[in-house]
């Protein structure tokens, strides 16, 4: 059966075909449900990137000017003493990054659980608008009122991490509701490239209003994000069920889980038919699906290994996000603006990598082999990049390659694989686990990333940049180790398919 997947086009074509039978404007709804969810995640990442991009301005605002002679007038040059110099301000900004990632990780565990129980639309809306409001207070209001306080900043950033964490699991759950498994790899790959698109958009937004003051960079991104939340509230359909259409689950093919063994197939078909009958448009729901417990979700097959693999991978990925411009200007002596511009190539590589690898995994019907090969190549790319010559073109090319092999798998685990895991047959489909599982995978990844930010700065100061890259190589190797059991399982299944096919012929 799996061998045949190669000829199946991504799911959306088939959804459209099915539309003809339903006589409903399925296509319009289908397309429009992507736009709000997609734009949300773009906006979220744009606002996150804003903070990275205004760091220089913010630390200038927090410190008095460092000059041999004191400058007058004092209110222009000397008045702000939150930190004595910019080094301390930079340290604090790094600490804010870690605080954000930790609270984001904790929030991911929580919000997934909430998302499976409360209407996804409300959770999404609260997450987006709430975090927009917090960013407005953090960046704009404190500046207008001239309140500079470390504890206030920390508290607000913890809150921001918690609110932002509500968005990702819910967005994945909504997308999972709308798309079947076979198309997931490609759609999710393309779509989780939103993170990278958001980074680029954020860099553009921030740089275009930064000259009016950093508070306006925060103001613009938070207002745009708030508007996104409002649009979600009015426009988002969290699943086809809401319109009375048949949910995607009725497509038995989409229900075939990642770790399926052939024996279960009959059961799936049976279940699929039963589910379809329950979900008939005009019948009221007898019993809403029961949400899965947190520990139960953790014990689902594949969740733990993928979470750990993602922890290693997200560490490397986010280290690039936070440290790349700094590394480029530090190691090669390039100007900060040039370094910022060059670092975009990593995101570009990530977008292409996520999409292409998602597409390949859709055609294969397996994800783990694609991941393993890409990660193995990523180790080589990291070694290559660490030895890059002082040339911007070569550096950009190597950077895009590294992004392709690291950003690609990272995007795939966080979206497509999370959706696979949350819809696997061990759940019997009766339990809503999608948001919870996504939260666990992404949360574990974020803990890895948060710890990594500290480790990178530590290794860099003690042993130098070369060791940081060896650390990345080791971490990438670690994520290969964690997916090895799944790899063996999937390769064995593929081998069995091949054999079965031969025997039939």
């Amino acid at each position, binding site marked *: 059966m799996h061998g045949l997947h190669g000829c199946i086009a991504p799911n959306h074509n088939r959804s459209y075909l099915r539309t003809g039978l339903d006589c409903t404007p399925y296509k319009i*709804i289908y397309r429009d449900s992507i736009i709000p969810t997609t734009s949300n995640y773009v906006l979220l990442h744009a606002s996150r990137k804003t903070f990275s991009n205004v760091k220089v301005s913010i630390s200038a605002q927090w410190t008095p000017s460092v000059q041999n002679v004191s400058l*007058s007038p004092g209110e*222009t*040059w000397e008045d702000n003493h939150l930190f004595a110099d910019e080094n301390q301000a930079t340290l604090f900004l790094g600490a804010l990054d870690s605080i954000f990632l930790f609270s984001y990780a904790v929030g991911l565990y929580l919000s997934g659980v909430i998302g499976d129980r409360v209407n996804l639309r409300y959770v999404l809306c609260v997450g987006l608008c709430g975090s927009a409001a917090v960013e*407005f207070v953090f960046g*704009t209001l404190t500046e207008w009122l001239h309140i500079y306080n470390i504890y206030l900043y920390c508290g607000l950033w913890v809150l921001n991490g918690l609110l932002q964490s509500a968005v990702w699991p819910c967005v994945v759950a909504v997308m999972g509701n709308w798309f079947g498994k076979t198309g997931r790899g490609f759609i999710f790959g393309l779509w989780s490239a939103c993170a990278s698109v958001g980074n680029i958009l954020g860099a553009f937004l921030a740089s275009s209003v930064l000259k*009016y003051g950093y508070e306006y960079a925060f103001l613009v991104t938070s207002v745009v994000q708030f508007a996104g939340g409002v*649009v979600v509230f009015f426009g988002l*359909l969290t699943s086809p069920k809401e319109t009375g259409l048949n949910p995607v689950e009725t497509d038995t093919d989409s229900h075939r889980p990642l770790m399926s063994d052939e024996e279960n197939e009959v059961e799936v078909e049976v279940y699929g038919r039963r589910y379809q009958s329950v979900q008939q448009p005009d019948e009221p729901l007898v019993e809403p699906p029961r949400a899965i417990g947190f520990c139960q979700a953790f014990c689902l097959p594949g969740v733990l290994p993928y979470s750990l693999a993602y922890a290693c991978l997200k560490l490397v990925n986010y280290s690039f996000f936070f440290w790349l411009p700094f590394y480029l200007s530090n190691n090669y002596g390039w100007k900060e603006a040039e370094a910022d511009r060059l670092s975009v190539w990593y995101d570009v590589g990530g977008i292409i990598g996520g999409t292409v690898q998602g597409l390949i995994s859709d055609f294969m019907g397996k994800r783990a082999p694609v991941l393993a090969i890409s990660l193995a190549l990523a180790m080589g790319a990291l070694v290559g990049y660490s030895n890059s010559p002082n040339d911007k073109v070569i550096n950009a090319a190597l950077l895009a390659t590294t992004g392709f092999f690291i950003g690609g798998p990272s995007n795939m685990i966080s979206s497509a694989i999370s959706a696979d895991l949350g819809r696997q047959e061990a759940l019997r489909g009766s339990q809503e686990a999608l948001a919870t599982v996504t939260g666990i995978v992404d949360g574990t990844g974020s803990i890895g990333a948060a710890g990594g930010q500290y480790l990178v700065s530590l290794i860099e100061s003690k042993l130098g940049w070369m060791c940081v890259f060896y650390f990345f190589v080791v971490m990438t190797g670690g994520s290969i180790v964690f997916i090895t059991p799944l790899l063996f399982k999937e390769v064995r299944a593929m081998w069995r398919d091949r054999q079965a096919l031969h025997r039939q012929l």
Partner: protein
Amino acid sequence: MKAGCSQLKPVVLVLIFNVCFYASYQVTELQVCELCGGTILNDTTVGKFCSSSAGRVDGRCCWTNDNTSDPEHIIGLDLSNCSLTHVEDLQAASRALMIDLSLNPIVNVSDSAFQGFTELNYMILPQDIFCPGGNTSWEKVEVKEGNRLCEGQKDTCNQTGQLSINCPENSLCAPYGPGFFECSCADNYHGYKCLREGEFPALQVFGPLGASTVVIAILLWVTQRRKAKSH
């Protein structure tokens, strides 16, 4: 709407600030003029200067007496024979062209006493007190009849031979009294450390943004959620 608040808030703050500031300003101006008794005599240096520039004498001060455009301010200050030992706060007379501190037993002049006295051009001090900002800050320094005369304040920013004064990015050096300079924001720059350029075009940004949000929200509502079944 948020932007509207941002425009309004500073205006109110500035208003309150000004009210407080000017109230205290008036008081100190009077205090300077009455630092000691008597008025400016016509035959003193400040007195001659005041009558030649048609000023109004009030106590020890000589005020401008003409323009309606410019608020009235002190142009001359004669504190000679005033028993001053310390010279600290004369900021009320910061636009004075001429200050006479002769015949005072001055022991200490605070470093920043004449900061901001950009127009000061002629000073008479006791012989043992140095000109503020040092001799390099004045065109001509001479000792005459037991007094030290400091004439012609030099521009601190354009001095050659001294260590060059580099104002940070986006700011320009401007003279700020004898030996002092200030870095004021260059054209179009403002705010802390002159980091901000121009005014944020709130209407151009938030107008289209708000309008498109409303349009998209309504569009999506009509095409999507209207059909949604409430659970």
